């Protein structure tokens, strides 16, 4: 709406177009910074590009995280154990989250603890790993209360049951009306291990809960 109103205002005075250009330039500068800090640092040299599983029987070679077979039949099931987000002081163990009968993702039972959706990828494996946590309990702030204040470049570490740590950096933080949740973007296939952190935001309605979901999109560090 306000965008339309802006558009109508422009023809009224010619010099307004100058204002538009300047403001747009601001926007580009900020977007540029954001993508620069969120993008992978350029790789200098990878001396031995390697391949994934082979008929010869060789496993995935070192230095190639996430390029292995998607869950080889013999692999022990690995799961995430805890999440550390230094920028907002989060250090939580993880529940396992499933879907309810209607196919919606259930929230963690404990508001002070986040949960990992078992139908997504294991953090550090190819695909989207999804971790959800409450913004508040009935009485006050909960584990992901400050999730919306994360910004591009902030670190998120996920400890796994095999003793390894999957490391991510925030690429973007966005809010969506829950009714227009971008399922494909959050749960759709990705060619590298990515992480999505989800909580609530926006207006709270006693009957329906929060109107929005805040989603943090993170990529491998």
């Amino acid at each position, binding site marked *: 709406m306000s*965008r339309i109103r*802006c558009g109508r*205002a422009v*023809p*009224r*005075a*010619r*010099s*307004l177009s100058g*204002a*538009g250009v*300047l*403001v747009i330039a*601001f*926007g580009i500068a*900020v*977007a540029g910074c954001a*993508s620069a800090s*969120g993008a992978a640092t350029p790789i200098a040299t990878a*001396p031995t590009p390697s391949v*994934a*599983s082979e008929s010869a029987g060789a496993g995935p070679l070192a230095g190639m995280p996430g*390029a292995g*077979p*998607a869950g080889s*039949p013999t692999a022990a099931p690995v799961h995430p154990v805890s999440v550390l987000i230094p920028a907002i002081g989060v250090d939580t163990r993880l529940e396992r989250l499933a879907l309810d009968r*209607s196919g*919606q993702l259930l929230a963690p039972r404990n508001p002070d603890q986040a949960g990992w959706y078992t*139908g997504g990828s294991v953090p550090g494996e*190819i695909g989207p790993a999804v971790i*959800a946590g*409450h*913004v*508040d309990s*009935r009485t006050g702030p909960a584990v992901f*209360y*400050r999730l*919306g204040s994360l*910004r*591009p470049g902030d670190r998120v570490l996920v400890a796994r049951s095999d003793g390894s740590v999957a490391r991510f950096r925030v690429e*973007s933080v966005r*809010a*969506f009306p*829950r*009714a227009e949740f971008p*399922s494909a*973007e959050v*749960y759709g*296939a*990705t*060619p*590298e291990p990515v992480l999505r952190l*989800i*909580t609530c*935001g926006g207006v*709270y309605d*006693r009957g329906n809960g*929060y109107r929005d*979901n805040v989603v943090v999109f993170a*990529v491998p560090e």
Partner: protein
Amino acid sequence: MDRTTRRRMLAVAGLCVAAALLSVPAPASAQSTGWVRLAHLSPDTPSVDVYLYAFGNPDAKIVLQHVGYGALSPYQRLAVGRYTVAMRGAGADPDSDPVISTNLEVKSGEALTVAGFGRTASLKIEILTDSLSTPPGKATLRVIQASLTNPEVDVSTGAGSVAENLRFPGVTGYQPVDPGSTVVHVTGDTSEADLPTNFATASIHTVVVLDSASGELRLVDLTDASGATKTPVGGVNTGLGGAAASAPSGGDRPAARGWWLVAAAVLAAGLAIAWRVRPGRRTAG
């Protein structure tokens, strides 16, 4: 200051504030990147050094050295835009003319496989678009035929045929396959090969058919991408309202919004002053 000027100034200020507010969530760099992996799939071509440049920038962004036949790099995340990929003989001067080069466009949220492909005599850089979606409840499989000792192959899984008479240098489209463990079987004129593999639900695979050093068939299974096995319906109800009055509302920081307002106000003030200093503008429009 007459009424029209004042009205114009208000309009400028209002426009700036509106623009600032509108553009706060805009840095959604969410999908401003894509992915590229680089490969050498030319059986009779010696090892190469592969360079990737942002278009028009002579400083290479990625250099992969001594990339031999059958090697594929992991995906590299790149900002959207135009790039140039060049291949030189392994160890060649980075400033020397490349053996082959091509330009490509990285698009938001898209993945590409960029491979030196074909015989040396007719070597070209093939740009394959890699799939990032599967039919619900399925996996998908694509086959790249890069064997010269067996230039025509049949490919099947336990569930049936995937490709027949697939000729070098060739690529199939992605085909849906049932999730689960199976064996990819490839038969050529002089050799055959099996590769036990597991197709997870919502995973996207490329099997590459190669020559081994001894001239046998060699198979490589790549997981191009993977998604959630089941996509939940809608969002998540992760709030109970106990901090609703003060709960943070969304993806933008209040502090960041504050800076935008300050910037917008400064801009508006500057424009207003410029307006008054240059009376010629007042008659415009």
